[in-house]
């Protein structure tokens, strides 16, 4: 346990250095604020252009805005976790050195993911503050469901890291396509998990797929936590009570946790068999 904690902290420290050390602190601060605000503005302008005017339907706008804000976690964590394998192996050529050290590689990746979650949290908070104070998203700190927020955020992060680790297992076997796999999976989640439109808009098979992915329940739970009194109807999850929403999230997250262990171990074994742990391909 102590060893795993040490691995987590060491990997977390390394991840933070990599995320924050590429420029001076002031520029890093500007970047941390400007990037999520710019990303949010893209969505705002698209919404305005499509509706031919300002965002008048506040419930729908809040649905889209909050979904998009929390989706920052999905992109950052999934991409970040799998990128650890690619970056350590190809760019820094340290993967083999970490691999042969007496640590749980699983914990190493979780540690590295920690810094991604921290960076993503800054981006999500900046986006939310921008939405609340500039765009008028009616989130009220006194009426929001803090317990639901903390609980589902924790379970959601564990779930995202698990999915990331599963992808990391696949990345062990790939070089050229590792970036594409992360972005492809994140893109699938963007379409099928009710990020900017309810999954009821999807064909039946698409809805079934959406219901099988924990991110769908997680995003809905986040919206319910922040805006408990103002929920968009017809999302497919609108009528579900918080308890069942959390239960569905927990069960699907647990399934993905075990799946991630299985896929990661398989990827690890196959990579070791194929001699890909220290592969450098210049991709």
């Amino acid at each position: 346990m102590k060893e795993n904690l040490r691995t987590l902290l060491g990997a977390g420290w390394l991840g933070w250095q990599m995320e924050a050390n590429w420029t001076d602190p002031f520029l890093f601060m500007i970047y941390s604020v400007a990037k999520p605000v710019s990303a949010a503005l893209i969505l705002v302008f698209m919404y305005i252009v499509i509706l031919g005017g300002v965002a008048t339907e506040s419930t729908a706008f809040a649905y889209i805005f909050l979904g998009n804000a929390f989706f920052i976690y999905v992109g950052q964590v999934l991409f970040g976790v799998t990128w650890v394998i690619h970056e350590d192996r190809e760019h820094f050529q340290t993967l083999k050195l970490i691999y042969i050290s007496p640590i749980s590689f699983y914990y190493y990746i979780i540690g590295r993911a920690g810094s991604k979650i921290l960076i993503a949290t800054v981006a999500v908070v900046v986006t939310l503050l921008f939405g609340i104070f500039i765009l008028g998203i009616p989130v009220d700190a006194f009426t929001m469901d803090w317990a639901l927020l903390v609980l589902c955020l924790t379970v959601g992060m564990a779930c995202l890291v698990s999915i990331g680790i599963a992808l990391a297992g696949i990345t062990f076997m790939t070089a050229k396509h590792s970036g594409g796999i992360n972005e492809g999976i994140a893109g699938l989640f963007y379409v099928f998990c009710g990020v900017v439109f309810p999954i009821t808009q999807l064909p039946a098979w698409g809805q079934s797929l959406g219901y099988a992915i924990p991110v769908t329940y997680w995003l809905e739970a986040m919206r319910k936590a922040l805006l408990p009194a103002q929920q968009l109807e017809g999302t497919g999850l609108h009528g579900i009570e918080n308890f069942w929403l959390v239960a569905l999230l927990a069960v699907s997250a647990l399934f993905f946790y075990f799946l991630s262990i299985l896929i990661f171990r398989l990827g690890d074994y196959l990579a070791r068999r194929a001699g890909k742990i220290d592969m450098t391909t210049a991709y």
Partner: protein
Amino acid sequence: MNYAVETKDLTRIFRVKKRRRRRSESKGSEQDVTALKDVNLRIEEGELFGLLGPNGAGKTTLIKILCTLLLPTSGKAYVAGNDVEKDPYPIRRIINMVSGGETSGYGLLTTRENLWMFSQFYGIPSKEAKKRIDEMLEAFGIWDKRNAKVRTLSTGERQKANVIRGFMTDPSIIFLDEPTLGLDVNASRTIRKFISDWVRETSGRTVLLTTHYMMEADELCDRLAIIDEGGIVACDTPRNLKKTVSKASSLMFEADYLRDPDKLKGIEGIQNFTYKHNGQMNRTLLTFIVEDESAVADIVSRIVEQGAKIHSLEKREPTLEDVFVSLVGKGLA
């Protein structure tokens, strides 16, 4: 008895992808590369054991298997009695690895930070780790680079830091894969001296060193295995290996550029020979291992027949290179 390292009929074949096979004109099975073939080795605790062979002989593949980075295709490999395939974790607790000619390291971190981070993965308390790192940075003469970003270090400095990373965890068994590759004389000497001192400082420390530098192998190793094309061709102390060719003589000729040195093959009394062309000087350097010195007359006449003039002839004591040439039939370079 548990050996530090033991391999039994260890074989590693790298399969070539099917897609490539189809494009190839030759049959699929012929595309597979046998990196190691039935390797049997026993390295005792406390030995500084060398693996000598040319590029592509299988040295790095063997190190990768022993470090738990790669699985064998068949056969067995044990490190401190643990099967590399089934029990990698106990092995990882007692080993470390340093490879030469690499650019590994987190360029954004300083030398000290980079080393500290690795120390944390080996469970060394932070304070103790920093003390060890500082001592070793000083011993390797790169103390002034402690706060320099890794990306700014020169090749030699980076390799010294790499060696520190390997040794600071105080492993029972360390695998050194060409640790002085591409380094200047001074940096190589510092690293060789450190390795030699380290293994003799405390009993039970084992080093497996791969190299294609004969002098390095001769100077450092208690025992040596000569590896070529994935197989072990000889294994003994450097002294005993040299004895195997001591009855033979090693003769070095420097002659004008020879268009066809292979014509010298087949002279009676020659055990083996190698040659190197020196384009700049327009000369050819020939090394003969001869069982019978009467072969010298024939060698001279064959060289002269090609219209070349002999500039020098030297008889040397047998070296590991001669052993290698005698066993493998070619030079290392």
